[in-house]
């Protein structure tokens, strides 16, 4: 790019408040509510009495537990090994004792339990030995392995394992986008992180740019965060990489990866398309920072910055250990008495928590204490009047009113045809709906129903294939058996013919012998002989079986006798069944 050509004298240009000519369709401007939680610096949340660490905090396969109840672990010790494929590691967030590995309710929309480790801290917060690597002298694969084992995942809420996103594919990644937009109301964890730890974010970005061999780094920050922009510009100026900090317009969902990429580069990444195929990759600022910590210091992801806000006395940002119960976090911030529920994430896309006992996970960027006053329940839904306000604000340029219609009437094929899977569930449509229809709920329902159907279809196709294969196998076996039998019979017939011929020849050779006297014993006796032998063997076996006395059967309890009788009965039944069913079948 031209900027890198004029590297030497672009210091000033880099620190300029650059704007972009691109926009994305739609978007809304919900009240930001960000000021409450940016008044104080990021504070360290005190060590809780108990941590519950789920083994599935990322996109992909659940990590395999490496510890059992009773194990003593150190802070940062690997307790969950990444499974094959897309997966990530899980670590002990502090030193202490694992008291349980079992199912516990986690932060998930279903409110269902998942596999978790319970860790009781010993209070020492004692780290395992950590060692960083020099990424510039390492291989891309090595850096990715470090990140995989450090459990680094997308901290913007996507929790996609970062190592997978740093693979170099066949398309060259030109632009690395660092997402500091933070468009959701209430959430300020990225804002505070950029204000306080800009240097680490930039160093993390350098690692990613190096790993992806990208040309330039664009850091997008919404223009309602002037402090963060200033701090990031300062840090970017100190870097030798081509980094530009871009102030993007404040509009929800401008912080969505697709939307930010569009605004910064003009490139649109459709659903189902990898952004790297279009030459862009996007990471959240907090992810960049944890990548830096993992690579430079060997520090696994054991804590994150969480905004605690809403119906609390001291809304603020806390550095919280992964696994800390939400109840501890809100208690620390002073939840007000009328708080009746908690939201993980922002008010547009967040997740209502099944209860306050669930723990902070890697995806938990924000905890909002909710009260009926703060988030009044939506009025009853009215019918859709096709006003298309939803279509006006949809950042994916969908026709939400049509999708709603199809999802409602369970016409899933139609819904897919109308690009249901391009929906990013940002909630802008529900936000503006004058009929208060829970549109996103309908889309989630339709999507999960379609996924389930596709899974059903796959398994029924597999079942059909297996069934048909079995049928053909049975057919083939039958045919083979028949062929064998035919061959045998043919052989037997031939032997007979041969024997008869032989006898005839013998008879011809010795004309004085009487024919029947010789021929009968010559053919029949061998068969009789064999049969007699088999009979004798059976008799012998029977005798032997009768002779063998069962051991330890003198003093049986009635219970044991009953059991024996039962087993005998079953055996008889098996023999009977085996005799009839199997043989008649074949």
């Amino acid at each position, binding site marked *: 790019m031209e900027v890198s050509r004029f590297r030497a004298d672009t210091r000033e240009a880099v620190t300029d408040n650059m704007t972009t000519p691109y926009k994305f369709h739609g978007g809304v401007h919900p009240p930001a509510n960000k000021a409450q939680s940016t008044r104080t610096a990021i504070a360290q949340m005190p060590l809780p009495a108990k941590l519950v660490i789920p083994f599935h905090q990322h996109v992909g396969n659940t990590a395999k537990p490496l510890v059992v109840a009773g194990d003593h672990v150190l802070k940062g010790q690997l307790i969950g090994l990444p499974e094959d494929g897309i997966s990530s590691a899980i670590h002990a967030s502090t030193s202490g004792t694992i008291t349980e590995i079992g199912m516990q309710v986690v932060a998930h*929309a*279903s409110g*269902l339990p998942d596999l978790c480790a319970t860790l009781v801290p010993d209070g020492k917060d004692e780290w395992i030995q950590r060692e960083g690597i020099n990424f510039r002298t390492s291989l891309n694969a090595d850096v990715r392995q470090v990140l995989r084992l450090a459990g680094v995942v997308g901290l913007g809420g996507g929790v996609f394992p970062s190592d997978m996103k740093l693979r170099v594919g066949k398309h060259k990644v030109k632009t690395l986008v660092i997402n500091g937009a933070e468009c959701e109301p209430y959430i300020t964890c990225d804002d505070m992180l950029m204000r306080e730890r800009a240097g680490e974010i930039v160093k993390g970005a350098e690692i990613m740019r190096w790993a992806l061999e990208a040309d330039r780094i664009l850091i997008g920050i919404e223009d309602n965060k002037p402090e963060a922009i200033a701090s990031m510009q300062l840090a970017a100026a100190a870097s030798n990489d081509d980094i530009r900090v871009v102030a993007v317009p404040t509009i929800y969902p401008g912080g969505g990866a697709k939307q930010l990429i569009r605004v910064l580069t003009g490139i649109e990444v459709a659903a189902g398309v990898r952004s790297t195929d279009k030459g862009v990759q996007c990471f959240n600022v907090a992810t960049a920072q944890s990548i830096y910590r993992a690579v430079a210091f060997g520090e696994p992801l054991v804590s994150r910055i969480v905004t605690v806000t809403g119906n609390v006395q001291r809304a603020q940002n806390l550095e919280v250990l992964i696994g800390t119960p939400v109840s501890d976090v809100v208690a620390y911030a002073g939840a007000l008495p009328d708080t009746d529920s908690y939201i993980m994430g922002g008010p547009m896309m967040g997740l209502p928590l099944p209860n306050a006992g669930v723990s902070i996970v890697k995806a938990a960027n924000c905890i909002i204490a909710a009260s009926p006053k703060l988030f009044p329940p939506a009025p009853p839904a009215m*019918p859709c009047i096709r006003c298309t306000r939803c279509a006006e604000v949809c950042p994916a340029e969908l026709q939400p009113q049509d999708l709603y219609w199809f999802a409602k009437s369970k016409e899933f094929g139609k819904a897919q045809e109308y690009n249901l899977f391009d929906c990013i569930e940002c909630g802008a449509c529900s936000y503006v709906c004058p009929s208060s229809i829970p549109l996103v*709920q*309908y889309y989630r329902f339709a999507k*999960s129903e379609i996924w*389930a159907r596709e899974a059903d279809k796959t398994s029924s196709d597999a079942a*059909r294939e*297996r069934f048909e294969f079995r049928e053909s196998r049975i057919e083939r076996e039958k045919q083979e058996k028949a062929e064998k039998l035919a061959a045998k019979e043919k052989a037997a017939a031939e032997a007979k013919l041969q024997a008869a011929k032989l006898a005839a020849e013998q008879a011809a050779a010795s004309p004085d012998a009487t024919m029947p006297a010789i021929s009968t014993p010559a053919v029949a006796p061998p068969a009789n002989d064999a049969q007699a032998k088999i009979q004798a063997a059976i008799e012998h076996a029977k005798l032997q079986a009768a002779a063998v006395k069962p051991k330890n059967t003198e003093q049986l309890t009635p219970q044991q006798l009953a059991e024996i009788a039962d087993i005998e009965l079953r055996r008889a039944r098996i023999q009977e069944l085996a005799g009839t069913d199997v043989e008649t079948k074949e």
Partner: protein
Amino acid sequence: MLSALLIMSGIAVLLGAVLGYAAIRFRVEGNPLVEKIDAILPQTQCGQCNYPGCKPYATAIAAGEADINRCPPGGEEGIQKLADLLGVEFKPFGGDTNAPKPKSVAFIDENTCIGCTLCIQACPVDAIAGAAKQMHTIISRECTGCELCVAPCPVDCISMQVIEEKISNWKWKYPVFALTPVKQ
């Protein structure tokens, strides 16, 4: 009058020729209906329809010999899809057909199994692994829940276990529409 007649018969002849050509040009080999019906059937191969598998049942439906409401694993939704495909009325389960059950998989109690291979022979989709006198086990991923293995087991060690709702198979529920009348 004559010209009108001629024009009309001319059109008729022309259209007839087009139709005849289309019938030859776009002729479909085989019976795609059976395939379409088979695609809707759940492929449990359970025989609850009194046919020895899904494909035979599909063939029977296509031939008009079987009702569309004989497949309990397909559920009412399956009947609805068949009704839509065939352009017939929806028919609820009834008569001698079993009511649909929640989706389940077979499970072998490994302490009781005597290794008789009867279930292996009964399984229509080869979802049971084992050998004579060796303990058997169900490959639950492949099990269609047809229950065909339950009856042949001489020691009754096979039970059907309903598939539990877990995070991995959890689905978003249909939103409750708050507009439905609540009063009275």
